């Protein structure tokens, strides 16, 4: 088969995304659509988390400023307890609530108060970290699985096009190429979804760790303040 004939057989090779998608096998189509959905989901998580962490950082900064400004803890607690709060403020409120509850009944349960407060702080930090970390696992999963899924689509597509070659008994490149291009498109989409997901996962994970460390540091400091207060009251 000479090149001129091939050119006549395949007069207009349309390689737009739509054509590549539309000509693909149904399995490959499903793979492509799934990967595209995963990509959309990943990006939505990335955007949401980025905004959330920025907000969290800002809130922590603001709270620390207020906390170390010398305002009385009681006053601060009254301000914060009325509305739903996050991160550092939540930790503070949880510890203060435990403190208040211990002294409400005439201070009978003061002996192991410091231990209880520590536990409460730990639990609150855990909850806050979980909130920050939620959905990051999706990014990790997509990052590791998307290339494989794309590869699966590609292998399926190439398999399919080889079968077609066997049927048509024509192995000229002009006949083979579109099928392979379609198949490879699946891998392309897989990588398209996986690469941003992996990068964002690493970045966001680091942000979560940083926030958690900051909360723990604050909790330790606050616990120290409270335990001093407890010891003073017991001594008094």
């Amino acid at each position, binding site marked *: 088969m000479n090149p001129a004939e091939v050119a006549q057989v395949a007069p207009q*090779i*349309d*390689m*737009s*995304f*739509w054509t590549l998608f539309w000509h693909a096998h149904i399995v490959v189509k499903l793979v492509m659509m799934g990967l*595209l959905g995963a*990509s*959309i*989901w*990943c*990006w*939505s*998580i*990335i*955007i*949401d*988390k980025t*905004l*959330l962490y920025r*907000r969290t950082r800002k809130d922590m900064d603001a709270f620390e400023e207020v906390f170390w400004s010398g305002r009385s803890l009681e006053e601060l607690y009254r301000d914060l307890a009325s509305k739903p709060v996050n991160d550092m403020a939540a930790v503070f409120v949880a510890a203060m609530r435990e403190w208040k509850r211990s002294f409400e009944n005439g201070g009978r349960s003061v002996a192991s108060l410091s231990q209880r407060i520590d536990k409460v702080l730990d639990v609150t930090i855990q909850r806050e970290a979980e909130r920050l970390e939620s959905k990051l696992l999706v990014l990790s999963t997509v990052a590791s699985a998307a290339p494989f899924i794309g590869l699966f689509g590609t292998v399926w597509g190439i398999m399919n096009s080889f079968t077609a070659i066997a049927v048509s008994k024509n192995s000229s490149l002009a006949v083979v190429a579109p099928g392979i291009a379609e198949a490879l498109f699946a891998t392309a989409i897989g990588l398209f979804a996986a690469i941003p997901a992996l990068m964002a996962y690493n970045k966001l994970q680091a942000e979560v760790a940083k926030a958690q460390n900051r909360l723990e540091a604050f909790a330790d400091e606050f616990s120290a303040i409270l335990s001093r207060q407890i010891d003073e009251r017991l001594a008094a």
Partner: protein
Amino acid sequence: MKLSTSEPGMVMSALGHVTFLVAGLLAFSSPAPLPENEEAIAVEVVDPSSLNQVTRGERSAEKVQAQPIQRAERQSEIVERKEAGEAKQDTPAPPSRPAELKTADDNAAAPLPPSRAALLPKTEPKPTPPEPVKQPPQKTEAQAQAQAEQKREELAKLAEEAELASKAKKAEEEAKAAAKAKSEADAQARQEAAAKAKAEAQAKAEAAEAAKEKAEALAKAKAEAEAKAKIAAAAKAKQEAEAKAKREAEIAKNFNPNDIAKLLQSKEQAQSSGSSAPQVNRTASLGTERGAAQKLSPSLRAQLVGIIQDQLLKCWNVPIALANAKGSVVPSVRMKLNTDGSLAAQPGVINSSSDPLFRVAADSALTATRRCAPLRIPAQFASYYDDWRDVVVNFDARDVL
């Protein structure tokens, strides 16, 4: 899924993907085709059939002839192809010759000896004509004549030269004398002017006389010098001419006759003894050495054999005994044909048999072959001569009866 301002991720992501897809749809809709891959070396595909159509002949021939055959210089049964290629051996060096030796070639007036190379066609191995034997005396005669003439010419030339030289000398001397006279006259005039007061008229007359005398003397001396110069020049020219003749004679005495043999050897021999073929053909057709265009197809061959056999059998007087033998004796006659269908050689019977009838049958077949010649070969077979120049025909009595 709830859409909130605090979590705009899904909306933004969906919008971003749609934008990306649309951009991709626009940008990748038609990929730029790869540059046309050109072959590094232009290759012309020649299929075997068209290769076979290359006609038989020589590359250097002028045109394709109607009947493409190769050149053949000699007639021979064995076809021998010789290409007109480069010479395989070195040409012997030309003989040494003193530069001053006169040769007949130098003189246009002397008749040129017949060139051996011109007489010998390059590829023709004919016996060389015995002309070169005559050459030496002719040559020496011509040489002597040429030498004499040359000498004469040279003498005349020398004399002319001498005359010219003396003339020039004379003119020079004259000019010198005139200048001298003028300067002297000037000096005299100056003296005259100084001694004007003394004796103007007398002095003038005397001075004029002296000047005249002097001029006369000078003229006389000049004439004498001229004559002397002329004689000297003539003598010199004669001497030179003599010396030259002497030198030439000396060289001629030293002439080595072996040089002639050497000279003859240096003329390049014909390198090719000529190709041979059953028929002499002086002009080759344009083609290649091994081209084989005119091949008889099996059907054409059968047709041709039929035509030949028909003609021969018509000429054949079948012996009565053979007619009764019912085809047990079939002599095969081999004949060699020329392009016009005539016999190129005596036909011969190629098979044999112990049957007593065979002798009779073979003789009658040969007679028929001779009687039928020349065979009429249709023009369409003319170009396939190589295929039918050697034919074997079976004389089968059953075909005739």
